[in-house]
């Protein structure tokens, strides 16, 4: 090896180590992920009912989607509106809860466990339990509102209030986000606060000058993951609205979220080609939003261990 090439090879060495570490993912991506992704892209240009091979390749799915499908716009609208409200609410509530549970409150382990419990519950039981919470007559939610003289709405059974009900429901399991924030808060060295206190910084200053900047990578994570997950919101609605009778996404299509509509196309209308087109349109939307947030992150996300290009 010649000395002149050494800086080059150092950099190469670094990137090779990098590839080695990420190789588990690359192998899985090549073997298990990329193939099905490409297949679904191919399906999106065809008529494909799963049972027989794809036919009629062309742009017709995409053309129909943009020009002749009110449910596409309807479901995208519901999903976007839900996302605009639910994502920030979840960020704030999760952070607030974690912050509260990072104070010196007696019985910390107990409290943390309590607020984590909703994230443990999954599936059908949740739907049944929420029916009770939202029950306009007997549910605790409207009882609570009644204390302030407010007559609560019909929630899940009312077309106007079903989505707000789902937003409230998403807050219930904010415990998942809470843990992430909590592990972030726990990672902030206490010495930083001690130093700030010596400099005479008050609690607010400590919060905005130390806590928030150091938590920005975690907030950034929850924001990105929130966008990706929320736009694919599916399970809760499906569990709540798929009965023997009545339409999925009811009442009166008020909870026809994008992925609920996509699922119906894939596995109820047996139109996997169209579902794939829906999926790839969503993919582009979420990708663009993610890139936008990534772009902005340079101005507000602070990494202590960021690598700068030399």
């Amino acid at each position, binding site marked *: 090896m010649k000395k002149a090439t050494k800086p080059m090879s150092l950099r190469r060495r670094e990137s090779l180590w*990098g590839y080695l*570490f990420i190789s588990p993912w690359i192998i899985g991506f090549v073997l298990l992920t990329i193939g099905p*992704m490409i297949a679904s892209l191919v399906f999106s240009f065809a008529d494909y009912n799963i049972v027989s091979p794809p036919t009629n390749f062309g742009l017709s799915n995409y053309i129909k989607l943009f020009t002749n499908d009110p449910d596409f716009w309807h479901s995208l609208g519901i999903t976007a509106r839900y996302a605009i409200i639910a994502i920030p609410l979840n960020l704030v509530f999760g952070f607030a809860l974690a912050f509260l549970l990072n104070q010196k409150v007696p019985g910390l382990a107990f409290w*943390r466990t309590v607020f984590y419990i909703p994230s443990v519950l999954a599936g059908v039981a949740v739907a*049944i339990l929420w029916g009770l919470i939202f*029950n306009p007559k007997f549910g605790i939610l409207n009882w609570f509102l009644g204390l302030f003289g407010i007559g609560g709405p019909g929630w899940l059974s009312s077309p106007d209030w079903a989505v707000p009900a789902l937003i409230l429901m998403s807050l219930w399991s904010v415990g998942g986000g809470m843990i992430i924030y909590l592990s972030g808060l726990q*990672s902030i060295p206490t010495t930083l606060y001690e130093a700030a206190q010596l400099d005479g910084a008050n609690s607010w200053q400590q919060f905005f000058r130390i806590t928030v900047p*150091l938590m920005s990578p975690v907030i950034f994570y929850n924001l990105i993951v929130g966008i990706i997950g929320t736009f694919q919101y599916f399970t809760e609605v499906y569990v709540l609205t798929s009965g023997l009778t009545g339409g999925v996404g009811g009442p009166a299509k008020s909870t026809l979220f994008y992925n609920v509509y*996509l699922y119906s196309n894939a596995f109820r209308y047996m139109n996997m080609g169209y579902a794939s087109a829906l999926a790839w349109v969503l993919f582009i939307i979420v990708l663009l939003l993610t890139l936008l947030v990534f772009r902005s992150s340079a101005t507000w996300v602070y990494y202590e261990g960021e690598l700068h290009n030399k």
Partner: protein
Amino acid sequence: MRPSKKINARIVQIISTILLSIGMLVVLTPLAWMVVSALKPRDAVNTFPPQWIPIDQVQVLINGQEYFLYNIQVNGEIRQLALVDKQAAMGTFVNPQDPSESYDLPVASGERVTQVKLHWENFLLAVTKVPFGHYLLNTLIVVFFGTIGTVVSCTLVAYGFARFRSKAMPILFLLLLSTIMLPPQVTLIPTFIVFRKIGWYDTLLPLIVPAFFANAWDVFLLRQFFMTLPTELDDAGRIDGCGPFGILWHIIIPQSYPVLATVTIFSVLYAWNDFYAPLIYLQNQDHWTLALGLQSFNAVYTNLGNLLMAASTLMVIPPILMFFFAQKLFIQGVVISGIKG
């Protein structure tokens, strides 16, 4: 200064506790309802109005047949009689001790006798009606290997993305994230065909093996945390003669216990609760997992609401306990990063 600060802290504590208590009420009410429902009799899980106490309607056995017991007025006194027959509005009521003593009375004038009864046997029924042992064993296998696979692979991959520069890295990272932006419903069929072709249908492998190839959610999370760790410590490690693996093992991981605990909790919970992949990839009931078996209590045309709730209650206990004990790792995390930082 000092005393007022102490009072301030006290006030913050009190306010926090009040807020948390209100939150707890909201969070635990559904859970309490789940447990109450689990203790109800099969034919009165959902009543009008909803009842917080499990109540049975009392039935008595007369000549091998069960009849409802009524509180009903006979000749001026309220008595407990069994309704054995009904013709239009008139019922034939008999004395359960002496069935030959019978009265014809309007049914509407009486009321069924009720009693509070907790049906603890529902928990036993929930685990004996299905091959619970098989389900549990399979679930534990999936949880164990799935979690190891996830934590190990995601840590390695996240370390790669956080600490090594290369032109392709940002693109690859975006590619990683993009894999979770495409709704999984549309890749299900081709993925299924892949697993089917390599002979893994109706085995636990499709539920376990993908965990070893890392996933975007956890890699991204770990990367975010690794990137908050100052690189100066890496350099110190390098001077001490650590290679890239050494730095990961001796420097990065010890500072990352809280987030590693988080990823562990998430992947245990994911494997524990996942019902869709087992439904698609498993066939023989001996291979089923708990989450899949639990669904059968909610099958259409069935009336097993109390057993569903009993099984659900049993299902949430292990993850809750696990989380409670994993607490320690969070607290430990403070100490370590406090020293190192």
